[in-house]
């Protein structure tokens, strides 16, 4: 199958730069699957996992925290504020963050800003744990 180049770039440096057959990501408007020859496109991403399918069935998960995806005829770039490959995730820290966020959500139901922030933190933590455990 035809492959194309995928780059995942964060402010702290590039995370992924490989050739793949399929990229599947969670955009704000829903799940997106991109293969070679896709029309140029830009879409914002949700906090979630990006699946990179290299030859055949081999696939790799990358945890993405916000950002967007840019498709060009020969290249896909994902610009994210944070991105980690499954093997680089500090799962203990993610679980800790998950607990902290859950506690915050239970105690501070009133203050809207904190509530929103805690919710996002919880989403990010759950996403990292899921990616680490290989769940989509």
């Amino acid at each position, binding site marked *: 199958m035809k492959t194309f180049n995928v*780059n995942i770039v*964060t*402010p702290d*440096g590039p995370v992924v730069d490989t050739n793949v057959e399929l990229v599947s990501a969670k955009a704000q408007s829903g799940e997106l699957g991109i293969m070679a020859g896709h029309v140029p496109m830009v879409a914002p991403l949700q906090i979630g996992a990006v699946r990179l399918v290299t030859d055949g069935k081999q696939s790799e998960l990358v945890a993405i925290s916000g950002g967007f995806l*840019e498709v060009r005829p020969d290249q896909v770039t994902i610009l994210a504020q944070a991105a980690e490959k499954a093997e680089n995730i500090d799962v203990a820290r993610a679980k800790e963050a998950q607990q902290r966020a859950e506690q915050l959500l239970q105690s501070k139901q009133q203050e809207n800003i904190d509530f929103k922030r805690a919710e996002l933190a919880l989403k990010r933590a759950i996403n990292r744990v899921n990616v680490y455990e290989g769940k989509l």
Partner: protein
Amino acid sequence: MASLRDIQTRITSTKKTSQITKAMQMVSASKLSRAESNAKSFVPYMDKIQEVVASIALGSKDVTHPMLVSRPVKKTGYLVITSDRGLAGAYNSSILRSVYKQIQERHTSKDEYVVIALGRVGRDFFRMRGIEAIESVTGLPDQPSFADVKEIVRKTVDLFSEGAYDELYMYYSHFVNAIQQDVTMKKVLPLTDIESSGGRLSSYEFEPSAEEILEVLLPQYAESLIYGALLDGKASEHAARMTAMQSATDNAKELIRALTLQYNRARQAAITQEITEIVGGAAALE
């Protein structure tokens, strides 16, 4: 003239000082190389985001967003990036001097501007002059990751959207090379001067719509502008500190050389005097 013992003490203490400054110089040198590589790994992200922002904002003229529009300026925000500690030569003072001059030239009353301080030196500078920074961050690590500054950067961009100020300038020290750093003023918001990085402008399809993408993209772009400046500033800080410590070490060496000469002269004078006394004493006996 100082006694032999006094000179000896000064030589020893100067030597110790020079050891410290030498060590600080070497620490800064290694931090500088790390800071430089951090700044380098940020470049691809910045280039990419600039490219996409430019092709959306310039490519489709009918798209607009509050962050792209200049509004009447009632209040100006100044984001000042300094270090937490001193001993970095003119690094902090040159930034602060230039901001303060600008503020005094442009504004007549304190209601016309607000200050956001990144770094203790900057915050304290404005506090001393009775200007309390509306937001400040101190104790940033030497190699800040994006996660470390996400909060303050997001706050800064949010304050603009909420109307706390109508334009935002950022002052930082741009790293040219290890011996040259230039104080730089950059207008961050509104994003009026987006340049395309020369690459071809692609026409994209937007999913779901260009407006909604700008909604996500522009804050992220502004945030990365600030983060980029911070990395640049950190590299400058380490470079400035390295140069300052280098010259401190050189000065200490020069001082030690002068003191050693003085010490040897005094020692020689003491010996000569002793011999004269012995010879004088012997002559008196004959």
